[in-house]
């Protein structure tokens, strides 16, 4: 077959496959255009999972008649001023979106530049442009895409159900809305009630409002503001306290210069920062915004721009870890349980108590047919024969109050211990509410932090192996491991390279006891290849420390004297992260006086 130059429509359709993967990518491109046009309000409408119809309307700058004709040409853009790919301030710059969409769908653009007397409209169907006609629109641009992929039926077949595609669109709009709280968004169609996110104030408060609107009220109340800055890279945003977790990492959002990206960098960094607070299979919820000089980041990695490369990835990662750790340590005593109303809803107003001799079998709730034989003696197989008892008075808690205790304890953050209930929970009174502390969980955290500090101070003791363990790994991994040898030694693992494809383990952390060095090292190597960090080793050591802490702390069921309870509360105030036990459960819950008053209908 002779070599032929492909016609332009085919070229466009091939190229379109990269940019326009599914309806959600159309929405992403169009909304990004709207944002770049300086819109203050963007309305998105979709139907049939975006396959039937997508409409994006903004109140941005709009285009003049001449620009409109150019805009649908390949590689035509208004966004790259001096043709410098290193200085990109806009979300788009490739000039591919509109022609790509035009190549595979019926595209209709109506736009009005303020300088034009009226709006202009242009349609592109399967790559064929129509003439530009006058149209009606007050300001901005309205882009309508109908019958997406009608020109490429193969792609259409590979799309998922309408529902799934609609969900993907929703996620795209959510992400962009999180990135730009100053813009109002609405998302309508698909037979659902439209979602509206009104424009919020600029700054952290507005950002938190928007994040709360999108991620839910429990995120807003659990959110801890984080921020770190170094070498003109700023990491800021909000991280949920460890009491709010998800079963997957989908609740983690990273934005680089306002662009939502999916990046392993953030996943790894977030894991590292939270490793001490969460069990392995739980994931925190965070939204982080990285601001940096556009020259420091390359967004031109992927046509859909979901990935970016940093010139100094290590710095960004370190900043994220630092910002999160600092925020978590600062707000370590916070728990989500006190503010999201979970505590409140757990309380129920008392219903009128039933008399002690109440028997459901004699009540109207009893099944009618069953009644006749119910009057007889209860079946002995299930019912314990009743032990009768003396009347020795009503139950009452030991509420002795020691008058020697200083009264000003009530002003401390965790208040003054009042009593212990069920030999497990300390009830403490604060100036504006009450606190219930799980004594074991709280003491466990304190002992754990002490052990951790000791480990950091004194290092980990190393057990020398009689016969060094030789572990064969690929060359790159060996190099990676030996590069980190000094760091690993700090954690008690002494390794050295043993020829090109193997490492020798000479010493292991004695804390781990008899450990399978080969398994540990492979685990470590795999993790390092993926995340470039030595977390598995630290995690194992901390797991041992956590077990030691569990055994070394006061148990549930131990009666604590008032002095001991207060000592525990004071220690909690002084210990970082004392709001969660090592497993991420809260160590205490707080009930505000206002909440109590609400329960009793006083407010």
């Amino acid at each position, binding site marked *: 077959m002779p070599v032929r130059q492909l016609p332009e429509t085919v070229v466009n359709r091939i190229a379109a496959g990269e940019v326009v993967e599914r309806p959600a990518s159309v929405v992403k491109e169009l909304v990004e255009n709207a944002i770049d046009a300086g819109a203050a309000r963007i309305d998105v409408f979709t139907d049939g999972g975006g396959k039937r119809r997508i409409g994006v309307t903004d109140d941005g700058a709009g285009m003049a008649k001449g620009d409109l004709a150019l805009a649908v040409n390949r590689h035509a853009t208004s966004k790259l001023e001096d043709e410098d790919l290193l200085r990109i301030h806009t979300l788009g710059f490739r000039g591919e979106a509109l022609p790509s969409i035009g190549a595979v769908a019926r595209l209709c653009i109506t736009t009005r530049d303020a300088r034009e007397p009226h709006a202009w409209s242009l349609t592109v169907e399967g790559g064929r442009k129509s003439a530009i006609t006058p149209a009606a629109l007050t300001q901005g641009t309205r882009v309508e895409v109908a019958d997406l992929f009608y020109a490429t039926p193969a792609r259409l077949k590979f799309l998922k159900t309408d529902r799934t595609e609609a969900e993907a669109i929703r996620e795209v709009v959510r992400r962009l809305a999180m990135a730009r709280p100053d813009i109002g968004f609405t998302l309508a169609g698909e037979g659902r009630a439209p979602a509206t996110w009104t424009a919020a104030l600029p700054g952290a408060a507005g950002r938190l409002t928007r994040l709360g609107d999108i991620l839910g009220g429990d995120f807003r109340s659990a959110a801890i503001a984080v921020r770190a800055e170094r070498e003109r890279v700023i990491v800021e945003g909000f991280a949920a306290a460890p009491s709010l977790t998800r079963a997957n990492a989908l609740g983690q959002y990273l934005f680089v210069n306002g662009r939502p990206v999916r990046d392993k960098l953030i996943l790894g960094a977030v894991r590292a920062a939270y490793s001490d607070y969460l069990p392995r299979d739980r994931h925190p919820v965070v939204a982080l915004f990285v601001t940096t000089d556009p020259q420091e980041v390359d967004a031109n990695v992927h046509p859909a721009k979901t990935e970016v490369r940093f010139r100094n990835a290590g710095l960004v990662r370190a900043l994220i870890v630092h910002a999160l750790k600092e925020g978590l340590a600062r707000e370590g005593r916070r728990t989500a349980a006190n503010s999201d109303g979970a505590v409140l809803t757990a309380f129920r107003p008392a219903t009128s108590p039933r008399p002690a001799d109440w028997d459901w079998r004699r009540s109207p709730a009893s099944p009618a047919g069953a009644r006749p034989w119910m009057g007889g003696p209860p079946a002995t197989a299930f019912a*314990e024969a009743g*032990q009768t*008892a*003396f009347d020795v008075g009503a139950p009452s808690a*030991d509420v002795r109050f020691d008058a020697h205790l200083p009264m000003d304890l009530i002003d401390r953050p965790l208040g003054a211990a009042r009593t212990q209930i069920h030999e497990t929970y300390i009830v403490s009174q604060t100036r504006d509410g009450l606190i219930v502390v799980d004594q074991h969980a709280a003491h466990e955290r304190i002992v754990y932090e002490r052990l951790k500090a000791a480990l950091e101070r004194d290092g980990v003791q190393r057990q020398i192996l009689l016969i060094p363990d030789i572990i064969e790994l690929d060359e790159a991994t060996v190099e990676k491991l030996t590069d980190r040898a000094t760091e690993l030694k700090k954690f008690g693992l002494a390794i050295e390279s043993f020829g090109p494809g193997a490492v020798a383990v000479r010493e292991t952390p004695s804390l781990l006891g008899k450990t399978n060095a080969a398994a540990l090292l492979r685990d470590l190597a795999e993790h390092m290849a993926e995340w470039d960090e030595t977390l598995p080793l630290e995690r194992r050591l901390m797991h041992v420390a956590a077990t030691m802490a569990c055994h070394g702390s006061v148990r549930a069921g131990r*009666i604590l004297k008032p002095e001991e309870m207060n000592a525990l509360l004071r220690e909690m105030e002084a210990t970082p992260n004392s709001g969660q036990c090592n497993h991420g459960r809260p160590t205490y819950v707080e009930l505000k006086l206002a909440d109590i008053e609400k329960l009793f209908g006083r407010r």
Partner: protein
Amino acid sequence: MKVTVERAQLLKSLSHVHRVVERRNTIPILGNVLVRAETAKLSLKATDLDLEVTETLVAETGTGGSTTVPAHMFYDIVRKLPDGAQIVLEGDGDRSVLTIRAGRSRFTLQTLPENDFPDLAAGDMTHAFSLAAADLKRLIDRTQFAISTEETRYYLNGIYLHGAGSAKSATLRGVATDGHRLAQLDLALPKGAEGMPGVIIPRKTVGEVQRLIEDSEAEIGIELSQGKIRFTIGHVVLTSKLIDGTFPDYGRVIPQNNDKELVVDKKDFEAAVDRVSTISSERGRAVKLALSAGKLVLSVTNPDSGSATEELEVEYASDALDIGFNSRYLLDIAAQIEGEAAVLKLADPGSPTLVQDRDSKGALYVLMPMRV
């Protein structure tokens, strides 16, 4: 501080005091024992804030002084030192360490300042009397089993010690109950105990006193006030807070008019109850007592496994009666009988039963039946 002491003596004293110390503490100094050297003696003191034990032993004191060291570690060190060793304790206040030397062994323990060591501040004791060790032991042994462990009725978590009766028949009485059974023991009222307030001695204190008087023959000194009690047992002084509550009016639950009298041989009865209860499940431990003239039939039916019956010859002359009891409670009470026979006074299957020792006076037990 520098003091030399014999290992066996130190070990014995430490074994007494270190038990008071909890293994895990939220206040570090509560894990420590106070060591104080005075002229020719060494005293050791440990506390859990409710209970404080002090023991004094003979020692060769170079320079006096005091400090506090981790109790369990100190005990373990002394325990592992060779028998017959002379132990030298030397405190260095500036470095806040205590050095323990014996033979060629040398230990240095971190100390905490003695000023921080809590003091129970016993205050003035209003009443003081003494009891023979055997009497106090009997009072504890006969009542301890009935102490409630239920924290919601905290005032039942101890032995209620008080004066009862009047004039010539005045007694010192210990009572304990958990709502299902009650144990009461009377001793002759010792001199000095007249007019004493009724006090509730906490369970942990009862246990510690019981251990301390195990091999003691001497008189035990007891001092008490409204809020505290102190036992002096040889060289050991145990001071404890009392349970601050009102013990229920237990007299109401002791039956006075139970007319059906049953006399059983203690050993036979105990063994028979133990045998038939083998069948009972974890859930229900009921054993049925079927009484007729001169005969007692014990039976247990467990729908999951089977049944057991045993017949006993007894002294019984009243009307036939069926009554159920928790087998564990029956065994507990049978174990308290010091003589050969127990007397059970019954009324009906729903009322409390009175149990007494036929041959030994002073003790009485009340047991609530089970509905079977």
